[in-house]
């Protein structure tokens, strides 16, 4: 293996290496949007090819086309010199294309071996799992993907589940492996391990397409990088010849300010005091274990951590959605440990939920109705048992203007809005009543740059106006950009609270459960 300590030392694929996969002039439109516009790129044998772009740049659409989940409107796919049509995942597999999706496609209640056996055409009809177990172990050793074939998927950690996905693809003879945002669920240390696996695959002559929006990962793991923006390919460059600012510019279209905004002193009165909080998860086990912290007015406390370490349950407990088993939650000097979501909201706690469509809105109901969802029981939106839709509409129109929500009319069903506008609607609703405490979970997940920027400004502005903000996010960059202090959750505990300027590596180690 080549030493790959620095990005530039990463072994460049010789320009002469044969092209394994070529995509020519691919075009894909969805109603109202061009997801891929004449996309052309090629991937060589023995290459890790990064596909860099922001959310919404069209990367995942392109990969779904390669894997047969979508059909392109125009363009061609060439594999090993021959034009192919990929009508379904079955075709893709037949052409040696494998995919590790961002949200794993594993059957949670089946074992690892059963999940793998599902995709292997050569397995025997009776007792199919027997032979597969041996194959799994062989491949696991070869690539460093250790996992127990007998374990059920739900018993595995996220990173182990990812290994199963990779094994599934490899055992089916994938020569071109697509990984969609593989590091988004990993700690930085787990990500480094994954890069090791990728290098081993490369040495065996396989081609890897690695989708990401993180510059550091491109530099750490890829040989060449193709940058996409708004459905189009901006350029493909060897990693050794690219610099971070240059890639960032290609990715977002304008110079990105790498400077963090000035920190707020954050010396207001305590707004949220959490003492020894214990909360149960859906399976009845404690998943928040003795969390304590204080959040002040005029302060943003970021909660970093890999998904599934108790953040969701913490937020639900703080907003009255989940029972507090033990401990105490105090908001503005009142003990709210037993309060319902409704009273919490009335007392000035805003909640930007993690799953905006599943929880934050009622998709078939109108923008107006969604705008008053929180306070439909109060005047002026209802009087006695009756609703007052005139005041509701007036209120919604005001929010639409104030928060520039793009909607054809206040009567439009909320489900017809784009993700960014749905999130703006939720923020508008939650922030319109000037809450003292804002609990925001993944507020910009999956949104485009301009909406993300707008939401960040809103949160900062509310902080400056005196609100306390608890920002839960998996995106370390977001937390580093906004938070005045950073708390890290691991295994249900708040393992540390560190000052804003703390370097990524330290936070990363904390996220991985290392005590620093």
């Amino acid at each position: 293996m080549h030493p790959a300590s620095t990005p530039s030392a990463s072994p460049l694929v010789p320009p002469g290496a044969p092209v394994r996969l070529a995509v020519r002039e691919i075009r894909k439109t969805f109603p109202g949007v061009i997801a891929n516009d004449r996309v052309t790129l090629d991937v060589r044998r023995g290459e890790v090819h990064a596909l860099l772009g922001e959310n919404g740049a069209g990367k995942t659409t392109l990969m779904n086309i390669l894997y047969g989940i979508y059909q392109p409107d125009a363009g061609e796919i060439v594999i090993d010199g021959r034009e192919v049509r990929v009508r379904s995942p079955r075709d893709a597999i037949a052409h040696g294309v494998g995919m590790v999706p961002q949200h794993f496609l594993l059957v949670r209640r089946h074992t690892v071996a059963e999940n793998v056996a599902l995709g292997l055409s050569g397995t025997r009809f009776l007792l199919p799992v027997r032979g597969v177990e041996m194959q799994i172990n062989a491949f696991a050793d070869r690539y460093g993907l250790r996992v127990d074939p007998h374990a059920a998927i739900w018993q595995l950690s996220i990173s182990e589940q990812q290994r199963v996905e990779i094994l599934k693809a490899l055992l089916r003879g994938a020569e071109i492996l697509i990984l969609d945002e593989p590091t988004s669920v990993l700690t930085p240390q787990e990500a480094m391990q994954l890069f090791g696996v990728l290098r081993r695959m490369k040495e065996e002559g396989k081609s890897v397409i690695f989708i990401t929006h993180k510059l550091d990962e491109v530099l750490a793991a890829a040989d060449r990088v193709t940058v996409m923006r708004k459905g189009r390919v901006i350029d493909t460059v060897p990693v050794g010849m690219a610099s971070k600012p240059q890639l960032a510019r290609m990715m977002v279209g304008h110079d990105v300010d790498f400077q963090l905004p000035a920190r707020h002193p954050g010396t207001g009165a305590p707004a949220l005091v959490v003492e020894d909080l214990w909360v149960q998860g859906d399976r009845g086990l404690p998943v928040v274990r003795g969390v304590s912290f204080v959040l002040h007015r005029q302060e943003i406390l970021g909660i970093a951590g890999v998904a599934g370490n108790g953040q969701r349950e913490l937020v639900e407990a703080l907003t009255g959605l989940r029972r507090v088993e033990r401990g105490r939650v105090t908001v503005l000097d009142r003990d709210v440990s037993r309060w319902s979501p409704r009273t919490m909201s009335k007392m000035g706690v805003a909640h930007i939920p993690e799953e905006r469509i599943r929880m934050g809105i009622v998709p078939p109901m109108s923008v107006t109705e969604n705008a008053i969802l929180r306070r439909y029981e109060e005047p002026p939106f209802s009087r006695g048992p009756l609703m007052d839709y005139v005041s509701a509409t007036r209120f919604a129109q005001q929010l639409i203007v104030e928060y520039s929500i793009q909607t054809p009319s206040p009567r439009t069903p909320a489900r017809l809005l784009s993700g960014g506008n749905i999130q703006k609607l939720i923020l508008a609703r939650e922030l319109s009543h000037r809450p003292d405490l804002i609990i925001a979970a993944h507020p910009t997940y999956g949104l485009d740059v301009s909406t993300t920027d707008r939401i960040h400004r809103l949160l900062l502005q509310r902080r400056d106006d005196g609100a306390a903000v608890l920002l839960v996010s998996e995106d370390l960059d977001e937390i580093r950009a906004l938070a005045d202090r950073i708390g890290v959750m691991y295994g249900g505990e708040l393992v540390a609270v560190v000052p804003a300027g703390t370097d990524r590596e330290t936070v990363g180690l904390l996220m991985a459960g290392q005590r620093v």
Partner: protein
Amino acid sequence: MRVGPSVRQLGPFRIEVGQPSGAWTLAVSAVAIFAAFIAAGGIFWAYGVNPIHAYAVIAHDVLVVPGAFPEIFRSTIPLLLTGVGLVLAFRAQFYNIGAEGQLLAGAVAATGVALFTPIRGPMTLPVMFAAGFVGGALWGLLPSLLKLRLNVNEVITTLMMNYIALYFVSWLVTGPWRGPSVRGFAYTDQFPLSAWLPLIPGTRIHWPTLVLGVVLAAGCAVLLARTRLGFAIRVQGENPEAARYVGINALRTTLLVMLLSGGAAGLAGVGEVAGVHHKLLDPNQVSLGYGYTAIIVAWLARGQALATLITATLFGLIYSSGDVMQVSLQMPFRVTSVFNGLILFFLIGSERLLAYRVRWAPRRAPADPPASAAAPHRPSGEEQWE
């Protein structure tokens, strides 16, 4: 759930195509029903009845023969009451398949008041309706509690409750409630006259129940569209997670809906015993499967309480047709089940048609200038389609 890709992007604000218009929904429903009639015609033909002849006879006997037309409303009345109740239940995403049992429970309660209480005179009927409402509501209570408390599938429990009600009524009329004066027959004594619902002269339409149905339909429409409770019901039905998020009490909302839904079916039961039979008798004669047909009435109304006025009338027409086919064409009354099943199949099958319009209509020709893709309103690709 995902964000529907359904806003037509011709400029910053443009026509949305995602909501199927009322006219389109109506047209699709009409075509579906028409197709169901054609399919039923095929079955008649296989049965040995010329379908054109059959439909001609039906049209004549149901619409032209004097005195036949009002008969339609005899079955419309129970269908309307139960249908409105089911619209409400379906809006709250509670699959109440138990209207048949709730109807029977209402009939039993009303019979109890008419025969076994000393109440006589003008108060009899109001008390019977009240008792019937309570009876139907209580019959729906157990499945709703099981659903809300233990998450037991309500489709099966409400169905089981239907059979329990059926055997319960059978038992009453063959056992403890069998009329001493009817000798051998399995029904109760006749109600006292004060427990008879008045009819529209010249017809057999027990009009107070019809009025009650219309009022209930209008009331439910107002409830859903204009009240706080209606708002809560819709939020709870469309997205229970959002209801939890804003602190709507799911137990209270769903329970209220189920009480209303069961109560409405109970009222229908009162109408049948007080307006038609004037006694409690074999359960299969008290209700001719109204509780099941009302499912289609409600489904066809697509969540609109007022629309049940039309859909219940349509199925009243089918019941009348069933009578005609039994008498004039010597076909069994079960033939209405064939109609019902086919119509329901075609209705849910055609729902995809509504969706396809959503999916394909807004697609733009590839020749459109790509510039608009960068317009401010552009929903970004991956967040919607990945």
